[in-house]
């Protein structure tokens, strides 16, 4: 896997999270989140689903946006290094 601290590294992690979430969603584990209300459920499936869901709605978009900002900052930094070399 790509090193984490690269724009592509961020984007790949976001993709991994979304794919993992899609899998547990397809498995129907969403229903098991009823454990959150204290109702009888398969708590492990519910917990895994909840963690992947919150990762998908909180972490994955942050990584995607972060990748875009990171790429822009990297281009700026490269430009500055080039300028310094030329001087």
């Amino acid at each position, binding site marked *: 896997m790509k090193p984490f601290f690269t724009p592509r590294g961020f984007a790949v992690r976001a993709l991994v999270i979304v794919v993992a979430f899609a899998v547990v969603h397809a498995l129907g584990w*969403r229903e098991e989140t009823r454990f959150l209300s204290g109702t009888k459920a398969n708590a492990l499936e519910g917990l895994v689903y909840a963690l992947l869901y919150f990762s998908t709605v909180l972490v994955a978009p*942050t990584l995607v946006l*972060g990748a875009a900002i990171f790429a822009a900052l990297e281009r700026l930094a490269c430009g500055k290094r080039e300028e310094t070399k030329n001087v």
Partner: protein
Amino acid sequence: MNAVPERRPAAGRVARGAISLVLALALWLAVLHVFFAPPADVRGDMAPRLLAEQLRFWTDPELRAREVERMRAANNEWDFMGRSFLVWSLAEIALREPATRARNLEVMDRIIDETIAVERERGIHFFLMSYSKESAFRVQPPRSLFLDGEIALMLGARRLVEEKPEYRPPFAERVRVMEERMRKGPVLCAESYPDECWIFCNTAALAAMRFSDVLDGTDHRAFFAEWLAMAKKKLVDPTTGILVSSFTLDGRANDGPEGSSIWFASHCLRLVDEAFARDQYERARRELARSALGFAWAREWPSSWVGAMDVDSGPVVPIVEASAGSSGTAFVAASSFDDRGYYDGLLTSLDFAGFPIHDGERLHLAASNQVGDAVLLYSMVLGPLWRKVGAP
């Protein structure tokens, strides 16, 4: 010697990556609520879907048995309260939409008859948590105001939609017994569990008495005045001014103020004293309601009180201290007091963290259960019933 110049760009890249993540997180958190904002017409859009799912429980015995078994494994009360909130919701909808009246009355009657039959055949403990059997009720014979109050409200709501002569005697009898038992208590409150009175249940009983005044011409004004004077003197937490949630028959507090009690209690108190009810709501709003970034939630306890997570608070999210039980009943109070901003914030949080499941024309919250969805439905449709018995 080459190590230093190679490390600099790597360290710079990590710093730029970290800054990018912080900026991205700030940006995403600022707009996140937009993706979970409620529809403009909640009553027209979400309520019919929630109702469709709720009605399925009363047309599909297998589905209902499975859901009831799951809920009763955690709390017998939920089996009972799921019925109450659904019956009250059906009454409100029947008053709002006369075309639904016949169907709603049929379902309401079925639920009421079945609930009373179960109470008669299996006893009050069937709908109570198991500790109800561990000691004796101080006022004999044993009765629970939790059951009497909500059953009376179910019967009264049904009669307010359309009179049903067979329900008049059991309704009048429940109201008479409730007043008699509340008067026997030193603080004009009756037990829901042995030597355990709840503000939730006692205010529900007061609301049922108000129904009785309108339906049967009784007059509880003197009792309401006595009760209010007593409550302001003996049942209010001195720090927050909020009514405590549970106490002994003598009025000694078991718990302090709790969101899972006060939100619904303030809604019921509107039928007794609107100004006091609003004051309680505003205090609860100040002490328990929280919002950030377009999301809203409710704490179970004010910051001045330390409580232990239990079946009423539901799970509590650390740091923000969002309580599932308190946030759920906060919907009822926010709707009752027409607090649209807070209500929409609560709905936004629910769409974000309640795991809604849309199945055709039906909707339920996976993270909730039948009673939680029934409370939400009630919050969306409440109004006409309370207005019919004199709430402003």
